[in-house]
């Protein structure tokens, strides 16, 4: 009897032991890691791969096929103001993400979410066991840290990011349990998930509490010693901003110590060295379908250069593995084609397709009543629009790679309508003259220029800055010539970009040449040229925009504009995507009818270059201002053969 009992007991423990062994060993077969990490794991300085990964890692759908580990992704970065070079390769890992085609919002850091029926409350579920790049656990407390200690702190965040502001005020975030967080706006906010998938959704998951709390008075009574030790900071707020700066400023990329959830982590700071280096995050939470932990590529280097032309030479020499920024301009295409064999790279398409790349932004809220009256006359704007020879601009400046168009959603967008794009775009001086006459500018002086309602020559001063490689100054000279042909006096004032911005944000400009997003899916979240909005770069009715945010400020707009504000609120409150699309369509109808800005040109897709052995490169790659691509997808790119081409 005793022997039998013993035997059963033995059997039981044996089975239990086998199960235990199976449970601990099995994931080691399931998940694989980069060989470059093996040594650290064997030496015990890094936990095994299944301990580093969350319980349910994100299985990322790759573009072509699962890849091979190894290699260094080599790029170039400008010595200043080029932080987006980093943001767009490694910076974008939010709670949710857009799929690689920019059509649908998918899980990312959050493994799932629930939306209330009226789209006012959003509950995100996080991945259990997920870790920051230094190995510390990531959970709901980190999100609450961002919300309570940073977002609600008026010293650190005097002005809140609009992503987190609903129509009735800032979002309320609450922790449900360690892995569930609720975002509640108290009123419908149908665009919130989209916004969270765009770049600025990053805030929520970018503030590691275990690291950053040491720089806060609340958590560290001995903070002053840290402040004293940092010569670039005078008080704790400055210190905190140095350590936890926003991602779209250089600050974020100047603190390599800050743990992140990104696929690669900085090894040194951007700006003061000849090369910025980022190395793989051994705790990255994504795997491919074969269970290989991402990213495939070991590290990314950014060689700092001062001049865009040097980047081209580096590309010709095969020193650039993947890049669209700075190189992908029509003017560079010929020389890049000539050196394709030598540099061993090929082209891919980039859908950087804004609403319009060249827009005459007339100031509808002009401080001078005479100019305001003329500019607000739709006939005047129609006349000016017909006066411009768009095709000639396209042929001369863009090598034909563009189409004449108004500022509008593009063909292929679900919001596209032909009349949005084509109205008043034909080059017809007769028609132009007719409309300008109808606008009351029918008298001319002895030099043939039209007189304004005050009897003086009507002059518009156009500000123009040389930006984005879009050749605005050259275009503006052409435009001034077309205007003179119909008797309009346009004066061109070249300026630098910061002065241009300070002038138009002070509402002191007549008009300027700029561009506008909203050509594709971003029309919903960034309708800068369809609805008056406060913006750092786009100003065509600043006072109305201010009124739209706060009815006690700015200037009350006409009813048609108020209707557009109402329509946009309805878009945001729409409970279903279908409803949202219909409301947005109505808004666009109204906005296009108003004809606020005069669009000239929509560009063809631009291009980027990738070395011939780079795989899983999205082609075409969608990209836009708010959409910080390809960062959520660089982790799945790899080198065939596991290393760079020689």
């Amino acid at each position, binding site marked *: 009897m005793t022997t039998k009992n013993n035997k059963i007991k033995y059997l039981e423990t044996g089975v239990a032991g086998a199960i235990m062994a199976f449970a601990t060993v099995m994931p080691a077969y399931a998940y694989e890691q980069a060989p470059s990490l093996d040594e650290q794991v064997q030496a015990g300085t890094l936990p095994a791969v299944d301990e580093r990964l969350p319980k349910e890692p994100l299985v990322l759908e790759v573009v072509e096929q699962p890849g091979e580990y190894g290699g260094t992704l080599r790029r170039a970065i400008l010595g200043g103001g080029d932080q987006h070079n980093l943001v767009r390769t490694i910076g974008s890992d939010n709670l949710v993400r857009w799929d690689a085609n920019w059509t649908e919002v998918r899980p990312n850091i959050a493994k799932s979410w629930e939306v209330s029926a009226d789209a006012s409350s959003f509950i995100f579920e996080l991945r259990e066991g997920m870790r920051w790049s230094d190995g510390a656990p990531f959970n709901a407390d980190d999100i609450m840290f961002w919300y309570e200690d940073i977002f609600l702190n008026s010293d650190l965040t005097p002005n809140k990011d609009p992503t987190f502001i609903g129509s009735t005020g800032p979002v309320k975030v609450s922790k449900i349990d360690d892995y569930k967080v609720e975002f509640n706006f108290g009123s419908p906010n149908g665009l919130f998930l989209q916004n969270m998938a765009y770049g600025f959704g990053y805030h929520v998951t970018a503030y590691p509490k275990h690291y950053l709390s040491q720089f806060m008075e609340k958590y560290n009574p001995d903070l002053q010693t840290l402040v004293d030790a940092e010569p670039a900071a005078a008080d704790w707020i400055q210190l905190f901003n140095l350590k936890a700066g926003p991602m779209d400023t250089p600050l974020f990329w100047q603190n390599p110590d800050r743990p992140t959830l990104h696929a690669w982590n900085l090894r040194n*700071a951007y700006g003061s060295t*000849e090369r910025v280096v980022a190395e793989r995050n051994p705790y990255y939470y994504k795997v491919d379908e074969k269970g290989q932990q991402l990213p495939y590529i070991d590290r990314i280097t950014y060689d700092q250069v*001062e001049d865009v032309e040097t980047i081209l030479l580096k590309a010709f*020499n095969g020193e650039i593995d993947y890049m669209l920024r700075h190189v992908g301009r029509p003017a560079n295409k010929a020389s890049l084609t000539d050196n394709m064999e030598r540099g061993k790279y090929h082209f891919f398409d980039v859908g950087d397709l804004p609403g319009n790349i060249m827009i005459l932004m007339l100031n509808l809220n002009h401080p001078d009543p005479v100019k305001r009256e003329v500019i607000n006359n739709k006939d005047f704007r129609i006349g000016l629009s017909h006066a411009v020879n768009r095709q000639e601009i396209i042929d001369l400046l863009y090598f034909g790679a563009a189409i004449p168009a108004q500022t509008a959603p593009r063909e292929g967008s679900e919001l596209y309508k032909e009349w949005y794009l084509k109205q008043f775009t034909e080059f017809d001086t007769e028609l132009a003259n007719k409309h300008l006459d109808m606008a009351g500018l029918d008298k001319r002086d002895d030099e043939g220029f039209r007189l304004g309602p005050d009897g003086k020559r009507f002059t518009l001063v156009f500000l123009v800055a040389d930006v984005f490689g879009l050749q605005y100054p050259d275009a503006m000279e052409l435009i001034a010539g077309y205007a003179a042909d119909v008797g309009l006096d346009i004066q061109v004032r070249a300026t630098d970009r*910061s002065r241009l*911005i300070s002038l138009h944000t002070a509402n002191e400009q007549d008009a300027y040449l700029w561009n506008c997003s909203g050509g594709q899916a971003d029309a919903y979240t960034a309708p800068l040229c369809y609805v008056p909005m406060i913006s750092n770069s786009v100003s065509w009715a600043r006072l109305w925009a201010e009124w739209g945010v706060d009815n006690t400020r700015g200037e009350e707009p006409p009813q048609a504009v108020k209707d557009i504000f109402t329509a946009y609120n309805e878009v945001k409150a729409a409970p279903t995507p279908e409803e949202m699309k219909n409301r947005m369509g109505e808004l666009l109808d109204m906005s296009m009818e108003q004809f606020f800005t005069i669009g000239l040109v929509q560009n063809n897709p631009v291009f980027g270059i990738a070395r011939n052995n780079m795989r899983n490169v999205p082609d075409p790659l969608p990209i836009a201002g708010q959409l910080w691509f390809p960062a959520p997808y660089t982790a799945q790119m790899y080198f065939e053969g596991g290393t760079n081409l020689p």
Partner: protein
Amino acid sequence: MGFCLRRIMYMIPTLILVSIVTFIIIQLPPGDYLDSLAADMGESGSDNTAVVETLRQQYGLGQPIYVQYYKWMKGILLHGNFGISFEKNVLVTDLIWDRLGWTFGISIMTLLFIWVTALPIGIYSAVKKYSFGDYTATLFGFIGLAVPNFLLALVMMYVSFKFFGQSVGGLVSPEYIEAAWSFDKVIDLLKHIWMPIVVVGTSGAAALIRIMRANLLDEIYRPYVVTARAKGMSEFQLLMKYPVRVALNPFISTIGWILPSLVSGEIIVAVVMNLPTTGPLLLRALLVQDMYLAGSLILIVSLLTVIGTLISDLLLAWIDPRIRYQ
């Protein structure tokens, strides 16, 4: 000695004045660093002013200009702290030290290159006036003067890229950027560094050849030269001891200008050739109105000018007995 002290005393008010003027001029254009930052940020689709306002408080940019100046000067004089660079978010001193080293290194080598080439050629073309060699030197001299430095830089980079397959830009090849100093790295550095030296030095050398030639031509027909020759002095010794010494005068009196012009004059070349010197830093700082960085660099260049002038005055007094301390 008294002369020296007096000269050094003069330097102080000069520098104070320079610092004030610098600070005002940098602040003159409308807007500040944050406006340029806002401009760059437009690209992220960030169309809100939230971040910019936060940073404006941090950088103290809302304060009146004299308060900013006072704080800056106080930091420099009391703590040797030139302020922080807004864009790089590190102390200006940390940022420029390394680059000043490279700048001086390249400048001094360029100066040596200029003298080594210009002096003998200048002397030769004066002594052998209207010879084949003189004409050749003159031809190259004029080419050197006429071709803009940056253009020469571009052409040389293109040639070395096209025909020698060399990695262009920077002072070392990409594979050596992070490497520790080694024999191979030095060799690689030498393969690159001659280019900026030749490019920056060419026009300087060309100018000095002409100056040397003209000065020496003035001197070698003077009676004292004839006397010395009549007394049987060897031709080479005679040339070196008297007329060359006198003709060196402009070389020395321009040292004061050469130092700063080498520091600031190579800006475009440094941008084109991607050199880790102060030039690109200054250009970028001015573009984005990174005022403490720009101000400090200009102040340092001014200091160089003043020191250079002092050196050349002292050298002149020593080399040319006709100059008196009055």
